[in-house]
Each structure stands twice: as structure tokens, then as C-alpha cells.
């Protein structure tokens, strides 16, 4: 993990610099983004310190993140809840749907036996993407200020 990161950073640095200027590339340095075993001593300033000390600003930041993540989860839950939850009612109100066949399969069997799973997977995929973006936004906000 450590060496892979170092390698990629060196490659990127030299490549860009050579392209932009004619100066000799700067000396290679080992880049270590994070190392769990030896936490580097750092002075916390700005928002990250306010987070740790639970000041009003820090508290508002966390509340914003929690609200964003909860809104995302609830929205996606509603999507799945409506898409799947409406089916039993629909089959009761319109029993004729059970006789519709698609590719040789009756519609209820196709929906519940096959198509429900890609739907769940797609919603899960969207959640991972957006939840991680929310976290990146939060981290940038904290580190910038």
C-alpha cells in the first residue's frame, strides 16, 4: 500500500513537471499519505479543532453532515419502498397483471424473482457514491477552514 502510493506520486510529479518546464526534475521524495502505526504529530487548527472541541461551529458542521447523509438514506429508502411496496397493492387491485407475460415469464414472477435484485443493487451503488461524496465534501470543508 505504502510503496504503491509512493510510486504513483513520483510518476505523476515528474511527468507533469517535465511537460511544463525544461528545468531538471526535482529530487525524488517518498510520499506517505498516512501511516497508521506512527501518527504524525500535527497541530489542529480551524474547523477540525472546533470539531474536536465541540464548539458551536463544529457542532453545526457535524449536524449538516448527519442531515445530508440521513436525507440521502431516506430518499433512497423511499424510492425502494415505493417501487417494491406498491406491487402487492397493484396485484390486488389489478389481478389481470398476473396474466401478462414477458419473455415467457408471468409479470409478478419476473418482477419479484429477477428484476427486484438489480434494482436493489443499483440503489446501493448510488448510495455508496453519494455517501462518499458527502464525506469528501465534509472533509474538504474541515481541512480548508
Amino acid at each position: 500500500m505504502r510503496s504503491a502510493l509512493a510510486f504513483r506520486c513520483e510518476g505523476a510529479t515528474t511527468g507533469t513537471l517535465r511537460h511544463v518546464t525544461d528545468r531538471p526534475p526535482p529530487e525524488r521524495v517518498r510520499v506517505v499519505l498516512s501511516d497508521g502505526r506512527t501518527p504524525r504529530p500535527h497541530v489542529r487548527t480551524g474547523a477540525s479543532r472546533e470539531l474536536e472541541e465541540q464548539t458551536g461551529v463544529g457542532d453545526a458542521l457535524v449536524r449538516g453532515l448527519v442531515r445530508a447523509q440521513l436525507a440521502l438514506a431516506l430518499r433512497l429508502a423511499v424510492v425502494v419502498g415505493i417501487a417494491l411496496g406498491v406491487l402487492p397493492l397493484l396485484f390486488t387491485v389489478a389481478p389481470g397483471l398476473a396474466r401478462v407475460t414477458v419473455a415467457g415469464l408471468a409479470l409478478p414472477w419476473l418482477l419479484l424473482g429477477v428484476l427486484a435484485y438489480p434494482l436493489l443493487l443499483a440503489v446501493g451503488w448510488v448510495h455508496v457514491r453519494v455517501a462518499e461524496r458527502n464525506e469528501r465534501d465534509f472533509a474538504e470543508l474541515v481541512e480548508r477552514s
Partner: protein
Amino acid sequence: MTHSPYALPAVVLVSLVTVAIGAYGVRLARTTSDFLVASRSVSPRWNAAAIGGEYLSAASFLGVAGLVMKYGVDMLWYPVGFAAGYLALQLFVAAPLRRSGAFTIPDFTEARLGSRALRRLAAGFVVFIGWLYLVPQLQGAGLTLGTVTGAPYWVGALVVGAVVTANVASGGMRSITFVQAFQYWLKLTAISFPVAFLLLAWQHDGRPALGPPAEPAFARATTVRVETAVRVTVDTPTPVTVDGRPGVFREGVQDLRAGTRVTFPAGAAVPHVEGLAARAGPAWLAPGASGDMAGGHALFGVYSLILATFLGTMGLPHVLVRFYTNPDGAAARRTTLVVLGLLGAFYLFPTVYGALGRVYAPELLMTGRTDAVVLVLPGAAVGGMTGHVLGGLVAAGAFAAFLSTSSGLMVSVAGVLSTDVVGRGSVRDFRLAALVAGLVPLFLALRVSGLDVSQVVGLAFAVAASSFCPLLVLGIWWRGLTWVGAAAGLAAGGGSAVAAVLAAIAGPPLTGWPGALVAQPAAWTVPLAFAVMIAVSLATRDRVPEDVGRTMLRLHAPDALRMRVRPSA
């Protein structure tokens, strides 16, 4: 019913490999943390396969196909719900719970709300749900070994109980992570590979209708051996041979003693177990059949089942303890997504067994042992050498299902017992607790053999959905939760669900609305639990933990920030 000669060796082999991988893992497990959560160093891919392997239980491997065969399309809500439960887990619980850093649900409860009393209440629910879920696993093992080898019921239950108890007591979580990852792939292979042969056989036979207008019928002259005494309903008079003597099944009810052999001529309609409404083709193909399972209130039954399975997964103790083996919160979320894909792939297959079972093994509708359809179908539909080999494969997959789910349940029950009841969490306490965790459900499984595998599992989901789901969701997302509110909600919602379970299992048979409310309790116990938790928390607002802000930061701040926030303890 013919026994595959490969079934017994396959079952023995799966058990031996399980023990062997477990023994390999023992050499790596040295500390309590190793035993409980594999030192949190399991990679996401292994972890996802292990979660899938642990989750696919007797209910998934055998029960779903059996229910589909009996009741039809409505039963597909079980596998859809089992999978959707992971989505709910991912949306609301996975990442924050991992960041909480707790080992078990009682740990999380105490860290979040700071109450020892609430911790003990949560521990009680973990043990109850764990045991409720373990009993049908052991029963499924008894049924499987009985079906494939003719061994008595208690042998299978005892074998699985003993193997798992010994394995968990000696290796703990580290070894079962590898065991379960291996078992996911075994289960997927065992259920998917024979499907190709089954569909080929069906094609070869001219694609006999899965839902013919009439009731299921014997395609050829068939001799059925009745394993346990059963009362069947006959709709059309049928000439039969009973124990070698010719006779006639007249319309109405027939009592068949255990050991009776009945031979039906080709084309005879299959009598069905009394109480199981006749599901002729159109009724079986169309939604609405689950009314049979919910006192005649089909729509209520379906929605209650949806609520229980969608929300129950996150409250199953053996599912949650797995999430602590992810390196961080984001990995926990991604792992859940992979699990969702693995489960979706698996659940495509049991439906095929249930549908083809009506064509090739209709006698199960008469003996009532539809849970065995996955096991007997390869032999019945494919036949010959190939059928025997496939029969051995599904038997191995079924055993993998019992072994892995029981291992996971036993680890979490033993973990809670060893930290909250009998000891203080040392390795020796854990081993002792594993013994207790295994012996109690084994005793119960040997005493009650008549429970329906899938229904009991469904009830376990209902209890989890009415207890831990509100506790986790409100604990993670709502600052206002107090320990008093949480305890009141657990007692009201979880308590009602437990009462419904006991009434459904041990009480008198109920019909109409009381029957529906008891058979599928989630629709009223889940809202009750949420409402009581919120209302009582609002009434005890002064007891909101002072450190709730720090806890929220810990649960939700991105892992990359490496917030130096101390645990509240």
C-alpha cells in the same frame, strides 16, 4: 424417493473441510479480539463472501424453494426481503456502526446511551434472537440428513450442533471468516449448477406446464413413503395401492400413518396436506396465496413480511457482528454493496427448484415436506448417475448453509454470553459460553421437531425488526434518544414480538385477525417500538447523554479525517 449414494460422503466432506479450515484458523487466533472480530483485519472481498455465506441459512437454501412450491409467487417476498434487508443495513447502519468501534450490539448500546441496565436488556434480545434462529438451522440439518440418508432426525441436528460448537469454541471468529467465505461459494455452486441440468431435463420432457389448470398430478406411477403421520385432503377419488393392498382414496380427508407406502397411478391428482389450500395452476401462479399463512389476510401478511425482512436484517446479531471486521466505515458500506450482489445472484435459483418441484416431486405436497424439494429434485428430474452426483452436491450445499449460519449465530450469542452474563470476555469465558450457546438450542431442536423452518426464521426477523432496528436507527441518527426511551421501546415493541412468537409456536391455533396479527407481527410491533422509543425519549429529555455531540462526530465523520475523538466510556 431414492437416496443419492454421494450425499453422505458429500456431507461428511463439508463437515471435515469446515473443521479443517477452522483448525488452520486456530493457529492464527491468539487474543480475545481475534476470537470475537478477527482483529478487524479481514479484507472486504473475503468479508463480503463470509457475510453472504453466513447469511444464507436453511431458510434460504431449502425453505424458499419449499414455500414457493407450496404457495407460489407471494413467497418470493422472502428472498427479496432477505436481500433488501442488506440495502436497509447499508443505508442506515453499516458505516456509522463500524465507526462506533463497538464489538456487539450491547457494546454499541452502552457506548451510545451509557446505561448498564439497557445493555443487559439488549444482551437478552441478542440471546433470544440467536437461539430462535439456531433451532430451525439444527432442525433443517436433521431433515436433510434424514432425507438423503434415511438417518433419524436427531442425528443431523446433533452432528451440526457438535461440529459448530467445537469449531466456534476452538477458533472463534477468525477461523469462521474463512470457513464462511468458502461456504458462500459452495452454496452458490450447489444451488446454481444443478439448475442447468434441471432446465435441460424440463426442456427434454417437452416443457410440462408449471401451472396447469388442474392440480399437480403424478406424471408417472409413483410410490410415496410417508415419513411422519399426516392428514391429507383428496379432491378427486383415486385408485391407489396402500402397503401392497389395492384400494381407493375417496373424496375427503385421509389419515396416513408413518411408514405407510402409497402407490398412485400415472396421471392421478396429488392429495395435499390438510389445511394447505389446493393451489391449482392459476391460483399458484397469481399473487394472493400468502393469505393461507396470515389467517386469510393476504395483503396484511405480505406487507408485514416486507416490514419484518426489510428491517429485521440489520437487527440480526450474527449479521451485525460481521461488520466490525471491516477496516473502516467506508469499507463497511462497500462490503454491504458486494453482499447485496452476492445475495441477488444466489436468490435467482431457489425459485426454479420450487417451480419445477411441482412437476417432478409433487408427492412432497402430500407428505408436507416441501422443505426437502431442493434435495430430492435433482434425483427426481435428472435421474441416473448425474442425478446422484447433483443430489450429493445440493446435500453438501445444504449442510454448508446449516454449518455457516449456526457458526455465526453461535459466535454472537457466545460473545454476548461471555461478556455480559458468565464472565468478563476472556478467551476461556468465550469457550465456556460457546458450549452453553450450542447446547441450549440443540436441546430445544431435539425436543420440538414439528416447527416449520421458514416460519420460525420469519419470526426471528420480526423480533429483530421490532427491537434492534429502532434502537440502531434512532441511536445513529437522532440525538434525542435516551436510555429510558430505548429501554421502553425495546420492552414494548420487542416484548410484543416475543409474545407473538411464543403464541405462534406454543399457543393454540388462531384464525382471522388474531391469527394474522400473531403469525406476521411486524406490521404492528415495529411501529409500536419506534413510537414508544420516540415518545418516552421526548418525555425524558433531561437524560440525553451529555457527550452525544462527540458520539455523533465519531459515528459520522469520514474515516479519512482520523478524528481524535475519544470513546465516551
